[in-house]
């Protein structure tokens, strides 16, 4: 009786192990089932989702104009103090003072990609870009100025 149980146990153990090994062998011989991506080599064919949150960018059109009025809604919405907007006052030809952004400072090292600034923006001036390779050797390179040199507010946006 004891011997019978013993042999039964051994048989059960061996058969369950072979079952698992069969599975491993199946994947070893079927290369079509491989799903690993060869990352640095497949940069050209890599598909990143449209909504992927990589970093905040300020959108500029072909005339080097953006839609940021300098209202600081994104700065208030940000939980980490990632965004700092420094305003200046332009003087129009009629002699009126007009608020405009001087520098849109963005600290990538503080950003958690929570999307709250994009939600808060009333003029859709900023958006999330799909870049993700952010490593640099110097931390100061992560502090970015988002508005281009010489860019100005697009006509008709208040």
């Amino acid at each position, binding site marked *: 009786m004891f011997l019978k149980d013993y042999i039964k146990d051994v048989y*059960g*153990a061996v058969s*369950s*192990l072979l*079952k*698992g090994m*069969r*599975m*491993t062998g199946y994947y070893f011989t079927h290369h079509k089932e491989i*799903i690993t991506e060869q990352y640095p080599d497949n940069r050209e064919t890599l598909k990143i*989702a*449209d*909504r*992927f*949150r990589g970093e905040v960018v300020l959108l500029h059109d072909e005339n080097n104009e953006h839609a940021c009025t300098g209202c600081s809604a994104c700065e208030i*919405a940000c*939980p980490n103090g990632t965004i700092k907007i420094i305003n200046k006052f332009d003087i129009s030809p009629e002699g009126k003072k007009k608020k405009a952004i001087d520098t849109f400072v963005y600290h990538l090292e503080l950003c*958690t*990609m*929570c*999307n*709250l600034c994009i*939600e808060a923006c009333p003029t859709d001036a900023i958006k*999330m870009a799909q870049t993700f390779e952010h490593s640099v050797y110097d931390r100061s390179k992560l502090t970015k100025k988002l508005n281009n040199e010489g860019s100005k507010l697009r006509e008709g946006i208040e």
Partner: protein
Amino acid sequence: MIEEIGRTTEGDLIINIGPQHPATHGVLHLVITLNGETIKKVEPHLGYIHRSIEKMCESLSYRQFIYVTSRMDYLSSHINNHACALCVEKGLQIEPPQRAQYIRVIMDELTRIASHELWWGAMAMDLGAFTPFFHAFRERETITDIMEKTCGARLTMNYMVPGGVMAELHPGFQRDVERFIQLYKSKFEEYSELVTGNVIFQNRMKSVGVLSKEDAISYGCSGPVGRASGVSCDIRKLYPYDIYNKVEFDEITETEGDSYARYVVRLKEIQQSIRIIEQLLGNIPEGDFQAKTKAVLKLPKGEFYQRVETARGELGVYIVSEGGTTPYRIKFRSPGFSNLSALEHMVKGLKIGDLIAAMGSLDLVIPDIDR
């Protein structure tokens, strides 16, 4: 406490497992008192990843504090965000639109599946099997891709906002989820072939780390750990939130209370989650995905509490408001903390190898315990 490094006064050996140990899944530090190889005492030391999330939330507005909670239990970040959003909605007395509620529940269940998948792979790896980890990640990858397309992030989504969800679903969402369900159903057999039916695995799991029903209640265990001991503690059934009262699913309970029961509960829960998703996926109503809320949220003076079922158990969010734009005090009741406290009771008198099996079956996420 330790009186002398290395030995107790009785001559028992004291060793540290962690904080840097692959079997503790993070920075958990266990001080174990051993007599030979038999465990006499297990003392968890916490605080290695304490980021004072509760205190941080006090300086953030009701819109901002939700994103921080993704960093507590990072494997069920959607569900954490959901709990916070529900609690703020309770204070504001607003009801999210039907469409938002459907989307929220589908996302919650997808997160639960992803979390259990990862646990399954990690559990097998704790017990020495390396291959199942890749099988688990294959299916989980499909879910993270779905999350990436709709929410924009793979792990810390921040998709739930007070009053609904942040963005409309991705156009191909339904097709993607259907494809995932199809893939999962075709691969489910592999799970039992590789791990569940394996005799080594069964011998190491069965009647190891037994937790009786009474102990599970007195330690406050919830989630799959409580249900494996026969405690009916599914918040989705007991205190339904959003549209959980409209969907049909079974609460999985086992009576053995050992590591194998906890394993079985989680695998069956994945199938119940798929059942919930299948019921909801085709019937998402049209309409807004977000209720109209003010730009600055102010909760009335008072206390608000909301509990949800995360992948690990009961998560409670308690907000005390003084009427301002930021909470006066926030407290999170995290499931991992209570589940970990039962560990010493479970493994007393067992061998060290059994400690790993028991600890793996608790599904500990250390940032959730420390917060």
